């Protein structure tokens, strides 16, 4: 079936994500790009986003993952992918209909636009507070949501269907004064209103805590230790939101290397697929089929419709559906049935189960796993590929 140009662009992006995860020398950057994309999630199915996500990830997310949070926040706020996704590009002051090109009696392109867009849209304002910065318990009200939405009126897209790029359209902007989280933003600020909101949010203590919690949840445990979060949040505040410094605080912490953090996380489908291919030294010439396997396990890439992104906790990936898809994937992988991916299991020939398991897991397998494999084969000769597949299907391999 022929694919549209937009589908080719998003397809390439998905395949590139797999190649980078498999082969990049900058693994921390990859993990962080995945993390921040999910934090500032955009869904491929909205507006023109299928064609824009490559730029969104490359230009708005990736350059800032070890930079300042405020730069990252601003880059996402202004990117057409986000402006489409959370509808801000259409949000405008209701006053537009009393004055200027939208006033009744006028005609022309403005009237055409007026039929589609004629007032405020809260979508971006709310998710900016709830998901991108303060967190849902970060201390904001419905009035703050409305005030933030008013500040961002006019942050829109030039030529949406030809050459989508950020533009501030003064005629759409709500010029009145606003109060955001107790800060008064004076009348007539224009584009500066949105910048002022970004500044308030980037320096808010709730943001420091929320971002630190999310990072610690990604790297340490589903319920990260509060003391660690506090120290990371202090670094965040002290360094003006320097994400490299926040990560350094986390990586150098006792908690990060503690026993409680060892194998505390359940792998996501992307992590399962990539870690299995890497453990087996798979030679991936075409990652198309692997992209499909990640989707089969419940994590279609760039395709999470809700702005919260994928959940980063164990219960998100522990289900019958997931276990079934995973066993099927591993079985196909070790038996060379995934197109574009070559696995050579001869290096396991002549080794016993414990040795193969140690090699693939990087540690000793549990006695239960060894016993299950031994009992299953009842003393018969085991093909190296089958042993490898079973080890990768084991509970041990599901953790990181």
């Amino acid at each position: 079936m022929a694919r549209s140009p937009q589908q080719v662009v998003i397809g390439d992006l998905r395949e590139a994500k797999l190649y980078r995860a498999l082969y990049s020398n900058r693994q921390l950057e990859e993990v962080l790009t995945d993390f921040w994309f999910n934090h500032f999630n955009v869904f491929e199915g909205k507006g023109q986003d299928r064609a824009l996500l490559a730029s969104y990830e490359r230009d708005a997310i990736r350059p800032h993952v070890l930079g300042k949070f405020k730069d990252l926040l601003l880059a996402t706020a202004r990117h057409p992918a986000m402006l489409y996704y959370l509808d801000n590009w259409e949000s405008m002051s209701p006053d537009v209909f009393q004055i200027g090109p939208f006033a009744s009696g006028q005609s022309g392109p403005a009237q055409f636009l007026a039929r589609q867009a004629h007032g405020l849209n809260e979508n971006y304002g709310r998710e900016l507070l709830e998901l991108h910065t303060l967190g849902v318990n970060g201390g904001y009200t419905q009035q703050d949501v409305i005030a933030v939405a008013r500040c961002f009126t006019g942050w829109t897209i030039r030529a949406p269907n030809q050459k989508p790029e950020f533009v501030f359209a003064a005629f759409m902007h709500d010029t009145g004064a606003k109060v955001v989280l107790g800060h008064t933003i004076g009348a007539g600020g224009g584009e500066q209103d949105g910048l002022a909101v970004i500044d308030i949010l980037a320096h808010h203590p709730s943001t420091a805590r929320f971002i630190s919690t999310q990072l610690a949840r990604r790297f340490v445990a589903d319920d990260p230790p509060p003391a660690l979060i506090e120290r990371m949040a202090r670094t965040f505040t002290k360094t003006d939101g320097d994400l490299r410094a926040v990560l350094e605080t986390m990586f150098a912490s006792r908690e990060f290397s503690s026993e409680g953090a060892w194998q505390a996380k359940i792998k996501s489908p992307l992590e399962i697929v990539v870690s299995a291919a890497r453990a087996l030294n798979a030679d991936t010439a075409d990652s198309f089929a692997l992209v499909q396997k990640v989707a089969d396990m419940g994590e279609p890439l760039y395709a999470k419709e809700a702005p919260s992104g994928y959940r980063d906790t164990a219960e998100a990936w522990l289900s019958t559906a997931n276990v079934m898809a995973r066993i099927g994937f591993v079985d196909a992988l070790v038996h060379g049935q995934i197109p574009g991916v070559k696995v050579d299991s001869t290096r396991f020939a002549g080794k016993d189960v414990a040795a193969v398991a140690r090699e693939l897991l990087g540690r000793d397998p549990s006695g239960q796993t060894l016993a299950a494999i031994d009992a299953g084969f009842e003393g018969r000769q085991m093909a190296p590929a089958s042993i490898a597949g079973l080890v990768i299907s084991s509970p041990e391999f599901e953790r990181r």
Partner: protein
Amino acid sequence: MLTRRIFLRGSAMVMAGAGSVPFWLGRAAASTQGRRKILVAIFQRGAADGLNVVVPFGEKRYHELRPTIGIPAPGSSNGAPAIDLDGRFGLNPALQPLKPLWDRQMLAIVEATGSPDPSRSHFDAQDYMESGTPGSKRDGWLNRALPPAGPDASPLRAIALSATLPRTLQGDRSAIAVNDVQQFRAGPETAAIVESMYSNSPDRQLAGAGKDAFAAMRMIQSLNRTPYEPSGGAQYGPGGELGRSLQQIARLIKAGAGVEAAFAEIGGWDHHQNEPGQLSNVLRQFGSALAAFCADMGDRMEDIVVVTMSEFGRTAQENGNNGTDHGHGDVMFVLGGSVAGGKVYGQWPGLEQEQLYEGRDLAVTTDFRAVLSELVSGQLGTTDLAQVFPRYTPGNPLGLLKSTAAVA
């Protein structure tokens, strides 16, 4: 040895499954000869715009609040009008497939339902509703509503059609999530060994996840060996994703797989802009899927109740982009042969400025737990509602089921 026993059990089942009906399926089927009652919960993720799903066309204020996206009153020649239900409310025209079910009094509508919690966050509000505990998050109401499993309980007694187990079904009772069961292709030997690794794993979290997965998996694989032909002229195709999920539920119920509670979901309701076309599309799927399920189940609908819910409704007034923003009160559907349908339930709070919640949203006059309580006791036989909905005391029943209508 436990390991060996499980492996042998797995092998035996595979052999049995190759030809005849496997014995465990026969057992599960036998245990359901008493025509078990079933509760199916459907979650509309993204906050469905109740005011355009069931249209209060009798309210002048409705048309003032929604000059662009409002659905015209029945009989209007101006665009596609609402389908009249009772002279006050009408179905969105895209819900035409549900009208015959309303006429047969199988479909009840509960207006102005929702949560007492004021959150307008999708994710918190979904969690609260799925927990059945507004304001706090815990395991799922439908899991707590299940009676203790008897010795013949099926591994498929509580099933979600999704890639991950939704909060609604998380909890102490075993419940499983499956999506596309056709995906499973590993050989039986592999599956048996992996089952053994999981069952005996010292990793409690993973052992728990694996516990129910494998028995369910074998049962579904076995059912899949026979192609499925929906009955009653049911057309699941137009129902999209939800149609596919309900078809799998129908298939399991008809095979006598021992289903007691099922969960399915349908996304795509968050219409902040350009609502009319998008809402029509998703409603067409929603209505077609429900209608197909009813047609397919036929007489069996006497034992089944389907209930639909969404985390909150949307602003009474349309926003600046032919859409609506996050609101409060919403609408729920209750569908089944034992439902006292053909009636709009609940107290209508009105749409005048002072009647709206916080001056902008439809108020909630019926707690969603009132609806669910009635269905939980009627369908699952669970009378200890304090355990299902802690810190909530239901009032008089709404009378949604024929059995409760007499009391109400």
